[in-house]
Structure formats: structure tokens, C-alpha cells
């Protein structure tokens, strides 16, 4: 071949050979076996693909070089993602990971998650996060012994659903956003807004159509599936981590806007009292922080758009066959709602109750094995 890609492809083939072997001989608990098999198959297919490229006579032709380089890059990224994600998690799969994976599996069955549930490992340094292609959720080390953050698992599960159902879930939401900002920009022009102000509307549209809409969709799904516990979990996370509840960053919309969207979904799936209760607590938090809503906030996050998004999202989730939260004893979502209620009512004795409930859940899983 004699091309710059040749040694790189041989190196990649060797990496996939290693991954294939490691995953092939690895022994994991039954909860993780589906994941091991799936990743092993991905590694095997990728290895075959690298071998096919190495055998392709066109790979050394200059007019193909860039395209095969692109293929090399994607496969390289895949090898690294397998190594750093599932291989790392599966090779150290502890009792806590096994427990959390069963919790995720049970939650998935309860709200009719449409695919194979991801595995969950307690080894994150980035709070809760989803590695979508690898079907892996990472959570902080201590989460297996604390219930109050578990509603965030539903937000991470939503990332898989949204990524794999973009046309059903994401596109109708994006159409609503596009339509809203097209009208807002036309109206701004008619009213003689400055170019800078119109530019700000375009900037918001771009941010919405980027990462924001995905985050909103995931929050809406988590609220749809758990109702109050996700709303509480969001409030706790804002209290713990927010630097400015009205502040906006590229990857995430403002916490206040996310809370508003959660409230809009609560209006659709619960009685008004629950929504009012959360809203009152949110106002208390905002007042305690001393945060003031900036003028541009309603322009960036109009209430009417958030309401329309919640309505459309609920429709899309139902079309996918997902089940909204309904109080049912023994369901994870119900346990979480109960946990939040007890925590609010009696925070001093909550820890004992939580320990007991998690112990019961572990015993139940053990008995089911």
C-alpha cells in the first residue's frame, strides 16, 4: 500500500483485535451480559471493517485518500470509546454497578422504555451522564446508596430515546422552535428592532436548535415518567450547582427555563396542586439566591413556546408507547416520589428510611435472581 494510512490502519486493527479478545473472554454478571455481547459484536464488526479497508486496492489512490481517512477516524474514535467506556466499566463491574443496572432495568420496564436498557456504573466524575453509542450510564460513586438523585436516571435514559428517535421526538420540537423564532424575527423587523437585537433572536434560535432542545426534551421525558421526583431532583440540582439560574450556556439552557418546562409538563400529567407546590418552592429558591430575571429571558424562553413544547413532547412520548407516571406500589418512580415526600416532611429521619428502602430493594433483587 505504501500510504500514510497503512500503518495507522494496522495499528487500529490491532486495537480492535485486543478489544475483541478482551470482551470475548470477559465474564460478567447476567445484568451486564447483553451489553458485553453487544459491544463485543461492535468490536468484531469494526475489526472486519478495518481488515476490509486494508485489503481494498483503492485505499492508496489519492482521490480516495481523504474518504478512507474519514473512515479511519470514525473507527479510531469507536475503539477509544469502547476502551474508555464499556470495557473499563465491565472489567470493574462491582456489586454497586450490578444493583444500579437492575434499578435502571426495572425503571425501563415500568415506563416501557422501547429498547435494551443501558448498563449503569457508579464511576462518574461528571455527575450523571449518558454515553449514547455505548449504551452506558455513568453516575457518581455514592449514588447506589442515595435515592434522591435517581430521578436523573430517567433524564439520562431520555438521552438514548431522543438520540434514537430524532424524527419522532426531536424534529416536531425543532419545528416548533423554528416556527416561533421565524415569527419573532419577522415581528422584530416589522417593529424596527435594531440589527443587534434581531441578531440576538437568531443566536437564541441557534442555541435552541443545538443542544438546548435535546436537554428540554430529556427533562420533559423525565417529568413525564416520574412526575414530582424529577421536579424535586431538578430543584435540588439547581440549588447545589447553579451559578446563575437565569444564566445561559451553549450546552445547557438556563435552569429557570428548564424548571418552567418541567412545570409545564407537570400541568399536563399531574393535578394542579403538585405543580403549584413545586412552583412555590422554586420561587423561594430564586428569592433566597437573590436572582433577578433579565429582560431578555422571556425573549429567549417564551412561556408559550415552553408550553407548546411540553404538549408536543407528551404527544411524541405517547406515540412511542412510553408510559406516563401512575402511582403504583413497587415501581421505582413511586419509590422516588415517596422518598421526596418523606424527605420534605421529615429530613432528619429520612436517611434511616432511605437505608431501609434500598436494603429492601437489594433483597428483592437478590430473591428474584
Amino acid at each position, binding site marked *: 500500500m505504501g500510504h500514510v494510512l497503512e500503518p495507522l490502519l494496522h495499528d487500529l486493527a490491532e486495537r480492535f483485535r485486543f478489544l475483541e479478545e478482551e470482551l470475548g473472554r470477559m465474564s460478567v454478571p447476567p445484568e451486564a451480559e447483553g451489553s458485553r455481547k453487544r459491544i463485543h459484536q461492535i468490536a468484531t464488526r469494526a475489526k472486519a471493517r478495518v481488515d476490509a479497508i486494508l485489503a481494498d486496492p483503492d485505499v492508496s489512490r489519492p482521490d480516495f485518500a481523504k*474518504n478512507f481517512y474519514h473512515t479511519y477516524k470514525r473507527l479510531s474514535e469507536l475503539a477509544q470509546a469502547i476502551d474508555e467506556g464499556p470495557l473499563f466499566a465491565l472489567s470493574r463491574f462491582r456489586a454497586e454497578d450490578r444493583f444500579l443496572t437492575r434499578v435502571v432495568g426495572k425503571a425501563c420496564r415500568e415506563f416501557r422504555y422501547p429498547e435494551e436498557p443501558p448498563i449503569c456504573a457508579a464511576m462518574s466524575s461528571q455527575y450523571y451522564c449518558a454515553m449514547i453509542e455505548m449504551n452506558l450510564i455513568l453516575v457518581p460513586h455514592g449514588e447506589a446508596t442515595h435515592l434522591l438523585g435517581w430521578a436523573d436516571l430517567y433524564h439520562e435514559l431520555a438521552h438514548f430515546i431522543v438520540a434514537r428517535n430524532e424524527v419522532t421526538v426531536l424534529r416536531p420540537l425543532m419545528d416548533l422552535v423554528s416556527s416561533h423564532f421565524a415569527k419573532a424575527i419577522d415581528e422584530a423587523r416589522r417593529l424596527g428592532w435594531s440589527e443587534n437585537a434581531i441578531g440576538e433572536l437568531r443566536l437564541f434560535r441557534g442555541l435552541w*436548535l443545538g443542544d438546548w432542545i435535546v436537554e428540554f426534551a430529556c427533562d420533559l421525558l423525565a417529568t413525564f415518567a416520574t412526575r414530582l421526583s424529577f421536579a424535586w431532583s431538578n430543584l435540588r440540582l439547581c440549588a447545589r450547582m447553579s451559578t446563575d439560574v437565569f444564566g445561559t450556556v451553549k450546552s445547557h439552557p438556563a435552569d429557570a427555563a428548564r424548571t418552567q418546562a418541567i412545570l409545564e409538563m407537570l400541568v399536563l400529567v399531574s393535578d394542579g396542586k403538585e405543580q403549584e407546590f413545586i412552583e412555590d418552592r422554586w420561587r423561594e429558591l430564586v428569592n433566597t439566591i437573590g436572582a433577578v430575571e433579565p429582560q431578555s429571558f422571556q425573549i429567549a424562553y417564551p412561556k408559550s413556546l415552553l408550553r407548546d413544547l411540553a404538549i408536543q413532547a407528551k404527544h411524541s412520548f405517547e406515540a412511542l408507547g412510553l408510559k406516563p407516571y401512575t402511582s403504583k406500589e413497587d415501581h421505582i418512580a413511586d419509590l422516588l416520589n415517596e422518598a421526596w415526600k418523606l424527605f420534605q416532611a421529615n429530613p432528619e429521619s429520612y436517611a434511616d428510611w432511605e437505608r431501609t428502602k434500598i436494603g429492601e430493594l437489594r433483597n428483592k433483587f437478590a430473591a428474584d435472581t
Partner: protein
Amino acid sequence: MSDVSALSHEYQSSAKLAEELNDAIIAIKKARVHHRSGLNQEQRRRLADTLGAVRSRLANDEKAPGEVVPQEVVERLAGRHGSKMAYFLEDLSAAAALLSGATAPIDEKVVHLLDEICDVADQTASAMFRRLRRR
């Protein structure tokens, strides 16, 4: 919850787009070099849909057809074409129309256009992959 999930989503979308275009370009180039049939009708239609979706996002249409195009890909393409966007939109429309036809030969201009979008999707995927690892 963390940036990782959002980046992971955007990486997957842009990598998928880059792969789809790259595989199509390789198939077209192989057909030319080896004088054999290239894309079948279904592959041509899918490619036309993708170009239509890119066009629609760049034109800020209220309703975008086809697959979801990652926002960063849209922004990078908008940055490249700036004031000459109208010509680029025309090229996209023409390429989508040609691909929608079952037999019309795929000319160099279309391959060049596919190459450009593929490059941008590839750059976006690589950027996301690096951001996921804080490099």
C-alpha cells in the same frame, strides 16, 4: 445532566451524518473508477433527503424535512458560505433534484458538494469527540 450527555448526542448525530455521506462518496467514486453501478435508487433518495434537510436548516425553513442535522454542522456551513449562501442553497437544491432522479449520472459538482458537507460533519464529530475528553 452533565455536558457529557449533550456532547455524546451531538457527536453521534454528526458522526452518523459524516459516515453516511462518506460511504456514499466512496461508492460513487468506486463506481466511476471501476465502471460499475454506484448508488441504488434507495441510497440516492436517502442522500437527496439529507441534502434537502441541510438546505432546509440553512434556509431557516419553519418545517425541516428528512433527518435532523446537527446545529454545529449548520453553523459551520453557514460560516463558510456567509454572504454567498443563496448560491450554496441553489447548489443544494440542484444536487437534491439530481439525486432524486433514478438514473441521472452524478457529476463532479455534486460529489464536490457532498465532500464539503462530509468534511464539515467530520470536523464537527472530531471536535465533539475531543470536547468529550476535555482535550
